[in-house]
């Protein structure tokens, strides 16, 4: 192994690059040869055991782990729109809802086979995304955020309340088949879908479409000058994103067993955007981690060190007033999410992805570089992801 490791293009935060190289030259590292893979393999195997054996086997964890996988798929879907294309969608809860109701309705009312409900959910959500995109993506700038927002609210208030499809306020049941009754198995089922979503995302980025999306995010006019059909590629991205959200919606329906329309409001849309941004726009692993974190946050606040931190903060802020303390505990997750979002945008534009990069780089065989954890505002400005930025 040579002393200076060439950082893979675009993977290193801007500020750390030259310093790290200079330091490596000045202080040659010890070379471990192939032995260095041993601790890394141990860590990877431990993670795999935890995700594939321990979590599905632990009753208290598996339902939340399934939530984490579903949210991660939604995060990946939203990341295609925000992270790769640089557009803002505030209506993704609408696509998730369409997927959920499509799966529940086709399974329970139309008695379609279980596997086919996923195709229907993805297809229908994709059609919704396509139609909305056809109209909305012709308008440039921030208007997509507004239109998707109103679209989501319209679905919530209107379509999701039509009794024929959604069974009104009672909700449309979506029973899992026998072999998925166990929450642990259902979690593994969701995890398989997450892996599939990651693969789709990976293939997308490495296709002509992926390159076109990244180009048009950088600068639409330049991309257009290079012969990229901006509207068409945005539409492809938006439709694909809708399909992924639809699949996540179907999983969501089977996770809770009954779908009601009232759950798909504005705050869910905000949570989706929040988890994607906090995770780190444009970074697959970061988005998955951010989404999973927000999915399991209610669980963490039931029983974990975070719960004790929450109680301590509530105790201090309330000056001993019991009512205020209860209020703080009730609104704590929301405040935490908002603070994390603002902190990410202003101080850590790379999101969680940037924070875990030293660990992932280490797993890939590079030395551990703790300085990448420090806050820094790269020269390319906030929202910087893999050497690029989100643009309106």
């Amino acid at each position, binding site marked *: 192994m040579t002393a200076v490791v060439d950082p893979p293009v675009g993977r290193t935060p801007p500020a750390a690059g030259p310093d790290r190289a200079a330091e490596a030259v000045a202080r040659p590292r010890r070379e471990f040869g192939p032995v260095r893979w041993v601790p890394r393999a141990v860590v990877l195997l431990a993670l795999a055991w935890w995700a594939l054996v321990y979590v599905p086997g632990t009753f208290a964890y598996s339902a939340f782990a399934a939530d984490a996988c579903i949210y991660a798929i939604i995060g990946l879907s939203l990341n295609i729109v925000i992270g790769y294309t640089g557009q*803002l969608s505030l209506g993704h809860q609408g696509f998730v809802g369409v997927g959920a109701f499509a799966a529940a309705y086709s399974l329970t009312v139309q008695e379609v086979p279980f596997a086919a409900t996923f195709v229907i959910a993805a297809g229908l959500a994709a059609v919704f995304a396509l139609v909305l995109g056809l109209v909305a993506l012709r308008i440039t700038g921030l208007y997509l955020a507004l239109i998707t927002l109103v679209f989501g609210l319209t679905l919530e208030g*209107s379509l999701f309340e039509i009794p024929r499809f959604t069974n009104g306020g009672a909700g449309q049941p979506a029973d899992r088949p026998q072999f998925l009754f166990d929450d642990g198995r259902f979690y593994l089922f969701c995890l398989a879908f997450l892996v599939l979503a990651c693969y789709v995302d990976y293939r997308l980025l490495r296709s002509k479409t992926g390159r076109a999306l990244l180009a048009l995010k950088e600068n639409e006019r330049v991309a257009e000058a290079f012969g990229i059909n901006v509207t068409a590629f945005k539409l492809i991205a938006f439709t694909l994103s809708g399909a992924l959200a639809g699949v996540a919606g179907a999983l969501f329906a089977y996770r809770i067993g009954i779908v009601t329309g009232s759950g798909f409001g504005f705050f869910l849309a*905000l949570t989706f955007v929040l988890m994607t941004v906090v995770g780190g726009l444009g970074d697959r692993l970061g988005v998955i981690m951010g989404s999973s974190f927000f999915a399991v946050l209610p669980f963490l606040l039931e029983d974990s060190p975070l719960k004790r931190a929450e109680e301590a903060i509530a105790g201090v802020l309330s000056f001993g007033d019991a009512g205020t303390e209860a*209020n703080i505990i009730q609104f704590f997750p929301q*405040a935490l999410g908002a603070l994390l979002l603002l902190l990410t945008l202003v101080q850590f534009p790379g999101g969680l992805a940037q924070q875990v990069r030293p660990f992932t780089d280490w797993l890939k065989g590079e030395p551990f570089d703790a300085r990448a954890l420090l806050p820094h505002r790269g020269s390319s400005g906030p929202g910087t992801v893999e050497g690029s930025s989100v643009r309106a």
Partner: protein
Amino acid sequence: MLMALDVVAPALSGAIQGAVYGLLGLGLVLLYKSNRVFNFAQAEFGTSAAFAVLFADNGTGPLPNLPLPLAVVFGLLVATGLGLLTERLVVRPLFSAPKVTLVVATAGVTLLLISVQGFLAGAEPSVLQPLFAGDVFDTGSVRVTRQQLVIVLVLVVLAAASALFFSRTRTGTAIIAVSQEPTATSLVGISVTRTSSLTWGLAGLLGGIAGILLSGSTGFVSPGSLTGLALIPAFTAAVFGGITSLPGAFLGGVVIGVVEALAQSNIPKDVLPGSGRVVLFVALLSVLLIRPAGLLGKEA
């Protein structure tokens, strides 16, 4: 079964409701004009102001028990302060960031303000007395309260005043200049940061006025109540009237309010539930497709 269309009563109440949308939309237009950004926190400046009035009026916590007019002044100060604070802590660090980032950040401010309101007041709605009690007239089917009349008057005055502010005063022109070309503007001696503070402070004040009047009119305030009640129609109204036009926010608000009320009272729930929202969606889509600049807007 065909029913006779119910027109007069919903049109009147819709127009008054629309004035509320317009009042909130005014702040949205101000920030779009000056910063090219959709401010999702606008309604929460208002809810926070309404809470501040409530707390000051009741003498909650460390606050002295203020008479109502002073409590209203306190509420407006809080709203203006929140606007300034948002500018200093969130907008200014993101000055050169893409606008999408800034829009997401204002959504973050919304969530944060809602949770702080929740910390202080809890999730249950608190009762807020109207500033101006009594009715102008009440015919049984149509009722107009004094507070609603004040809302309409305040909206007309504010829309006219802020339109004049942008076209006639040096400060107003400076704000437009900063939004169009920050670098050139600072070269001719206009402070970009001070202008930015000014616009966000003004937006906070406008939001505060809207929040106090609207919450007094609905009679309650709860964390995030204004965002839930009026933010989306206010955005639709602002875009419909022309997102860069202050009188447009007024006109758009009234049109959206009337159409929404007519749809809600004439389309039966079992035919199309949530018809008010469908109308908003259709109005927004059609105006953006047919005339993206809005009724009174121009590309500037």
